[in-house]
């Protein structure tokens, strides 16, 4: 005897729910295991020295002579400087581009620009790294910069900026589009000029989305490895600004993970943990940004 319709429906519902639950678990497993691995392996590396010293020379633990541990001070500094400079370039450019795409979409440049931005978000970051390296190389060939400046923090920051700009532009555009036309019309109808309408009213109304988009772009830049390999190089020494080879956390992780010295491997895990924590912090920051000053959610 076939089970009645009602029972069959509930069965189907339960099966589907079960499949979804399994899928969620499958999704969470790699995430959780990454966090777990980072914590377990990296927590041990977090000491005051971690933040105050630079990496040690590679050494093999010989009996009786433990290897120095060192720290990742300049790698952290490097990441901060690189991402900082990249943001300084990319955020204004990206936001203004986003404003153009959203508010001036009937201009002839808007459609092709949007298409290009979408394409650029898909270009592999190593290609961008090669491209930026190539540009700076040709500057050196032309004699505009010294050959020693081709691989530097500035080059790296430019590469990161090129990655960030289309992301910022598109997310900013989408955030602005969500602001209803009625708000713009209300502002214009008060006799507020268009530029003030956009900058003071519309942008303000979209600020949740704009800030989130910017933070996500910053987070992405912070984690990029391939372009920095080519453009910023790596060093375990101290840096003074961005003019020479500039270390960064992701590149350091790559370098130390592919070598096989236990003391530097330990540092790599510590750096991975720090990187992961930085991403978490940025996500939390994005959520906080979504609360407007009255305590409610803006978006």
């Amino acid at each position, binding site marked *: 005897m076939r089970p009645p319709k009602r029972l069959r429906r509930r069965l189907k519902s339960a099966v589907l729910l079960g499949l979804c639950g399994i899928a969620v678990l499958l999704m969470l497993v790699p995430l959780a295991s990454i966090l777990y691995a980072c914590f377990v392996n990296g927590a041990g590396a977090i000491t005051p020295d971690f933040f105050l010293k630079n990496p040690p020379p590679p050494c093999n633990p010989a009996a009786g002579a433990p290897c120095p541990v060192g720290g990742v001070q300049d790698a952290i500094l490097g990441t901060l400087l690189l991402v900082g400079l990249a943001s300084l370039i990319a955020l204004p450019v990206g936001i203004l581009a986003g404003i153009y795409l959203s508010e001036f979409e*009937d201009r002839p440049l808007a459609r092709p620009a949007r298409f290009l931005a979408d394409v650029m978000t898909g270009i592999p970051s190593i290609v961008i790294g090669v491209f930026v390296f190539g540009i700076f190389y040709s500057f050196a060939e032309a004699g505009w910069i010294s050959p020693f400046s081709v691989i530097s923090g500035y080059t790296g920051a430019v590469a990161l900026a090129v990655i960030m700009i289309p992301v910022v532009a598109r997310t900013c555009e989408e955030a602005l589009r969500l602001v*209803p036309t*009625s*708000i*713009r*019309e*209300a*502002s*214009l*109808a*008060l*006799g*507020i*000029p*268009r530029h*003030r309408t956009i900058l*003071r*009213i519309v942008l*303000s*109304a979209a*600020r949740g989305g704009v800030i989130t988009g910017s933070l996500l772009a910053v987070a992405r830049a912070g984690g990029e490895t391939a372009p920095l390999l080519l453009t910023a190089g790596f060093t375990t020494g101290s840096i003074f600004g961005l003019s020479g080879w500039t270390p960064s956390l992701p590149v350091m992780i790559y370098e130390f993970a592919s070598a096989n010295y236990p003391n530097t491997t330990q540092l790599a895990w510590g750096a991975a943990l720090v990187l992961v924590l930085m991403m978490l912090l940025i996500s939390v920051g994005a959520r906080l940004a979504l609360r*407007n000053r*009255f305590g*409610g959610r*803006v978006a």
Partner: protein
Amino acid sequence: MTDNKLVVQNLHAWYGKTHAVQDISLSFPDKQATAIIGPSGCGKSTFIRCLNRIHETQPKARAEGKVLLDGQDVYQEDPTEIRRKIGMVFQRPNVFPTMSIYGNVAAGLKLHGGYSQDEIDSAVIESLKKSALWEEVKEKLDESALQLSGGQQQRLCIARALAVQPEVLLMDEPASALDPISTARIEDLIFDLKNQVPVVIVTHNMQQAARVADRTAFLYLGKLIEVAPTRDLFERPSEKLTESYITGRFG
């Protein structure tokens, strides 16, 4: 006989290829409320949006003709200046979501520049009083505008529009999204306002036009069919089309 504050001559308007407003000429006397009625799609919203040049801010929108404010053609002037002089209240309340109640009303003055804090403060209080909202919000001027009810938000929009001291006030179906009490409040407001500023109100509710307006114009398919003192239009319209519409036989 009151002077004509706003005179429209041979106005045409298009959305892309659609000829939404066809050769309308109409005058709006000072110290009077004029209603514009007609079935949906007759062009009344488009028409009113041409008066303060909001129509052209939409893509593919175009207008031709003359709109004379005190004798000056608004299409020859800077649109930003014109929109300060000709204010507008929209169908749905569109308060600025990230600003407080005070901020909303002050926005027009603050973002225009050139007003002292005192001037702005007194303008805000004055406008809130004029739009019958002051008593309800005077204790919470710094709170978000979004926590007000629909009727209150619409009155806030009216206060915001009044704060910049326009010479004409346009209202595009201001009460159509509101409950009957809020609607009645806004109608009372118009009754008081029209002695200070000429009011042009677009409405699809004929009874509202009858209650509120001194003169009524009937539009159909982009053309002006008839305009007359409201009493006359509702007792004995001249055109058969007007008669059919206001007796509710179509629309």
